[in-house]
Each structure stands twice: as C-alpha cells, then as structure tokens.
C-alpha cells in the first residue's frame, strides 16, 4: 500500500530536484530562445559553478563561519554560492562576445561544434585548476541541516533541501518578474520575438545577447553551487545535467521559460516517482517521459519563447 507520507516525501524530493533542474535549464532555454544557440557547454558551466563554490565557500566556511554562527552561516553559504556563480558572469561574457558572436550568421552546426569544443576545453581547464580528483565541500550540508530540524509526516527532511526549494522558488519568481515587469526583461523578450524589429526600435541586440548569455551562465553556475554541498564535484558532472535539461526544455517547448519551469518540475517529480515505483526505469525514465510528451504534444507543452515568458 502506498502510504500518504511516503508520497509527500517523494514528491518533495522531486520538487527539490526539479528546482535544481530549472536553475540549469532556465539558462539553456533563454539562450536558445534568444540567441538561437543550443549551448552544449552549459553542463560545464554548471560544473564550473560547483568547483568555484568548493574553493570559495570552502575558504569562507573554513575561515570564519561555522554552523555555530546559526543563521549567519546560512547567509554566508548563500552569499558565497551567489558569489561563486557571479564568477561565471565574466566567463559567459567572454564566451558570448568573443567566441559566439562571430558565428551567429553561420550554419547552426557550427554553433554545436563551437559549444562542444568549449565543453571539452572547460572540462580540461577545470582539470588543470582543481586537479583530476573529485572535490567536495565539507561541513556545509550537515551544518545547514543541523540549523533546524524539519519533520515532515514524522520523518526528518533535510533542511538543506528545503533551502533549495525556497531559493529555487525565489529565483523563479525573480526571473518571471524580470521578464514580465522590468523594461530590460521586456526588451529581451521583444528581441526573442523579432530580432530585426527590436533593432529597428533601438534595442542594442549585441548587448541583449551578451546579457542573456551571462545570465544563463550565472544560473548554471548557481545551480552547480547549490547542488554541490550534498555531493561532490567531479570532471564528468556536466554531462547528466546537460542531457536532462535538454529533456526539460524539449518537454516545455524550446526557448520557453514557463515551459522550462513546468518541464523541470515535471521531470523532477516524475523521475522520483518512477525511481520509487518502478526502480528498473530509473535511468530511462526522463527519456521515456519526454518521448510520451512529444508524441502527445509535438511542440512541447508551451510552444516557444516570446509572447509569454
């Protein structure tokens, strides 16, 4: 018999995982929607975020802050993660302005080759800086879990997971607010709908593109930062998030932020349910879900970017 509290915990696990997926996929999908580039190096930006976090937050936590500092500790970890993700901003600016910009007019296969080449180069750059062995961030996961004990349906639920859900929800709200309500956000969307029209009304498309790519890099890095504490950073870590965010954005509709959000939560929750109810499906589940969605709704759930965020 399926116990109700079990459903609740599996679903919460899925929601938490869905938010991590959304953080990664949001960048991928807005880059795709606006720049029309499928960024194969996106998973490596995620990995880079995790590695930078391991050094940066590691130093912060080791130096001055311990879990004993209570809420301060949590804030330091969050600020450190955001700071680590901010390191990805100049990386993104460089990649877009120097490497991607010259080839927008070219056949799309060159963008694939370029971003794949970047995948390989970034991976080896990580290997050069952090070495071939995995790294981890000691003390943060258990430290944050120790700050408060949260019990759901009689079971301990890790505080850190709730933190991811809260932060993920805040980022989501922020992103939608940015694209729906702010001027820059509307300009970005206008550019996505019609590049030439945007240029005609005086939008600096170059600037928009750079902004979008840097934003995507930031959120990929932030996802890496948030994903690191309960696990480890290793050289192969970019591959799975990349493929899974493909699945997410295809389900949601290429280039649609709303779609990426729904797709991420759907994939997050359904894969967790599948892992629980049909363990044999664990690895195949995301792809099976995607195949089913596409057979039913070929353009994805939300079509493409622009009219709505």
């Amino acid at each position: 018999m399926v116990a109700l509290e079990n459903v609740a915990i599996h679903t919460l696990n899925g929601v938490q995982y869905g938010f991590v997926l959304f953080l990664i996929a949001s960048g991928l999908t807005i880059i795709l929607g606006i720049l029309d580039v499928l960024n194969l190096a996106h998973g490596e930006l995620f990995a880079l975020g995790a590695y930078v976090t391991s050094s940066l937050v590691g130093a912060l936590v080791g130096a001055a802050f311990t879990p004993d500092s209570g809420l301060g500790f949590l804030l330091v970890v969050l600020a450190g993660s955001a700071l680590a993700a901010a390191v990805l901003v100049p990386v993104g600016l460089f990649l877009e302005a120097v490497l991607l910009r010259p080839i927008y007019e070219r056949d799309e296969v060159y963008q694939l080759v370029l971003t794949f080449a970047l995948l390989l180069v970034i991976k080896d750059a990580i290997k050069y800086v952090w070495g071939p062995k995995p790294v981890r961030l000691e003390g943060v996961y258990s430290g944050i879990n120790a700050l408060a004990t949260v019990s759901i349906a009689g079971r301990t639920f890790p505080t850190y997971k709730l933190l991811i859900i809260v932060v993920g929800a805040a980022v989501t709200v922020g992103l939608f607010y940015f694209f729906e309500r702010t001027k820059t956000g509307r300009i970005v969307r206008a550019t996505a709908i019609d590049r030439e029209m945007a240029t005609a009304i005086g939008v600096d498309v170059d600037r928009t593109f750079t902004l979008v790519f840097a934003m995507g890099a930031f959120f990929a890095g932030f996802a890496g930062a948030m994903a690191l504490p309960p696990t480890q950073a290793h050289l192969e870590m970019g591959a799975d998030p990349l493929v899974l965010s493909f699945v997410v954005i295809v389900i949601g509709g290429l280039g649609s932020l709303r779609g990426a959000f729904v797709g991420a939560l759907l994939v997050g929750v359904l894969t967790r349910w599948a892992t629980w109810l049909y363990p044999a499906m664990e690895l195949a589940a995301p792809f099976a879900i995607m195949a089913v969605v596409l057979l039913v709704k070929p353009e994805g759930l939300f079509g493409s970017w622009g009219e709505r965020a």
Partner: protein
Amino acid sequence: MTPGESPGPDRRTVMKAVGGSAIAAALAGCTRLLGDDGDDGGGSADVPDEPIQAGLQTFTEGAASVLGLQTQYGAELAIQRINDAGGVAGREIELDVRHEAEAHVENYQQFVDEGKDVTFGPTSSGGHEALTQEVEEQGVVNVGTDGTVTTLYEETNDDPLYSFRFQNYDVMECVTVARAVVEELGADNVDTVAGINPNYSFGQDEMRFFVKALKQMTDAEVVYEGYPDLLAEDMSTHITEVNNESPDVTFSSMWGGDVTTLLTQAQANDMFDETQIAGTVLYSAVDDLGRDVIEDAEAISGSRNWYWGHPDPGRWSPGRDLFEVARDQFDVVPTAHFHSGYGAVAAWATAVEKAVDLIGGWPSQDQIARALEGHGFYTPSGYHVIRADDHQGMSNSYYGRMTWDDDVGAAALTDVGSFGPREVAPPPGTSASDWIDSW
C-alpha cells in the same frame, strides 16, 4: 652498483622488499611454501641489463580516480621498494601509467607495442571483460589489479593463459559482508534486507550475490532494491524508500564519492536510525568521510584483501609500515585499492624471481605465466596465492565496523575479523552461483 654489475639479488630480496623488511626472518622460513629449499638461484648472465618496462592502466582522473590513484600509488610503492632492494634479478622496474578511460584494449596494445614486459590493471570491471581475451591473443602477461567482475574467469575467459587477477573478486567481498552481517547481527535478527547499489553491472552483480549468500544463512526477505545512477547527485529517493521499509540490513556496493554522497544524505534523512548499513567498498571513501557520518552510520564494512590493522601490527608490522609510508608519501589512507596495485606488482615480481631461479635466465612470457600459476607470496596484508586453474588471486578478506580513529583522523575498522579464501570463494571450476546454492 648498476644492475649489470650486480650478481642479482636472490628472490628473497624481492620478497623482502614487497613483503616489508620487518618480516625478513619470517620469509626465510616461508620460502619453503613456494617449493624452494632456500638456495640462492642468483642472477645469471642471461638476464638482460636494461630495466623492466611495466605499464599500468587505471583511472587517473575523474570520479573513479579515487580508486585508480590509490592503485597507482600502491604499484609505485611496490616498485620503489623492489628497485631499492636491487630490482628483479638485478633489473629495476620502470612504470608507465595510462588513464584507462574507455580504451582498455587500445591501452594494452599500446603497452605491448612499446615493448612492455608486463602490464597491470585495469580498475573497471567492464574494461577487464573487454581486455582479457586481448591479453590471451597478444601474450604479454597482464596482472589485473581490480576489474573484479565475477564472470571474468567463469565465462568471459574460462581458460586463461596470460591474464591474471590479483585482487579478491566480487563474490568474495559479497560473501564476506554477508557473513559479517550474520556474525554481527545474528542470523535470527536479519529478516528484511534492502540494497542501494550503483546502477551498472557491478552494483547489480554485488546485490545479487550478497542476497544469495545472505538468504542461505538467514530467512531474510528483500524489501527494497534501489539503483541510483553512477555519480548521482541525489539519492534521497532511495534513502526514503529504505526509511519507509526499515530493513534490518541495507547493503551497498557504492564506491568512492558515491559512498560519501549516500552516507551523507542518509545521515541527513536519519536513515541510520532505521537500518544497519553494510557494504563492500565503503572503505574507498575513507579519505572523505567525516567523523559525524562515520559515528552515526556504524557501518559494517567488508574489505577486499587489505586492512592495515590486521593482522595485528603487534605481531605483523608490515601492514602498519605500509600504512605510514602511504600517508607520508602519498597523503592517503591506503585502502584495498592501494593494495590492488601493490599486490599485482608483488605477484608478478616474486613470480619472475622464482622463474629466474628455476631456469637460470630471464623467463619468457610463457614461463612467467606458468610461474604465476599457483604462485604464493607475501605482502603486508599476508599471504596470497594465484590459483593455477583460473588465475584468480586468493587472499584473506577482512571485515569490521567502521569507527572514527582520532590518531588516523579518518575511519578505521574495529572488531576486525577475517575469512580465508575458501570461506568466501567458490572452488575453481564451480560458478559462484552454483557454489552458494550448494551451501
């Protein structure tokens, strides 16, 4: 003294080197075990001057480098000790290490092309399956460090000539942990069992053998089997299911960083209140696991063939010596994977010394292979035999509870016990499944 001028140290020099200097006296007596009366065969004019070229393929980067680098360090230390003692029949060993990646056959071929006298590795089970027949075709002896898949010499290569494997293989560690669980908890107290194992052949095989063995000794019933993807970032779904079932024992064959991920997340979900965790390769994360996790988990750990504190260092100091050298020189707590590299080199070097003694010259690959068959030798973890029939190395296996050791600053084993190979491995010619069924 160059190797050319040296008359060549006798075999016992190499034995001493790889066995640890403190056991020189013990070894003098033990040589009889090898069918040798203690005569110095000595070197010979037929032994070439140039150094021995050896190749090792293992994981030198990525998540599996947690295992692979240990193997590399172990091999390097064994070679360093052999060279310091004058080499094998006067020849020093030079080691070339390659990242095994997904290119096991290509790496081996490259080694053969470069004229390697011997090759070691790999770490990957699938890679070993892919490699073993290539070794037979090329005829340069490969002493497997890990790649511990059970079917290797049962099916994939059931009549090996040049392919050997030093490390205890999958079924041995699974049976070790099953026996340890019964010993620690009592057969009557194990009614339900769950598993969280890595989602690939190794994890699936380990769970199958563990359950098979456990069911022969208890009335245990499997209540949950989860298989997180290799290197999964989140194992909370599997942990939640274990919590939901509260099994008496949860078995895991996770290795490296996955162990840390599993145990850390299990601790965060209070899984250790619900179940007793037991595993075969938990020790591989010893450099990463923090004190609170270790103390919470009180994991039952089976080890393949090496634990530094057993046999008791009071009576057998080489284990402790090796441990200290590994910490000083490589900054790791040496694990069974360290020993995989160490033992594979030791097996080959001591067998070659034996062959040189017997034939009075440098042996061919065939002669080395024959010398390895049934070859017995010492390392800091004790005595090992390479079985003649299936080329599988046989060593005692160790188990105990993982507890925090302040002196080491890492997890150590307490209440260490050991099983002889016959207690945990099928006799040659019998499949592991049939053997367990026959209990």
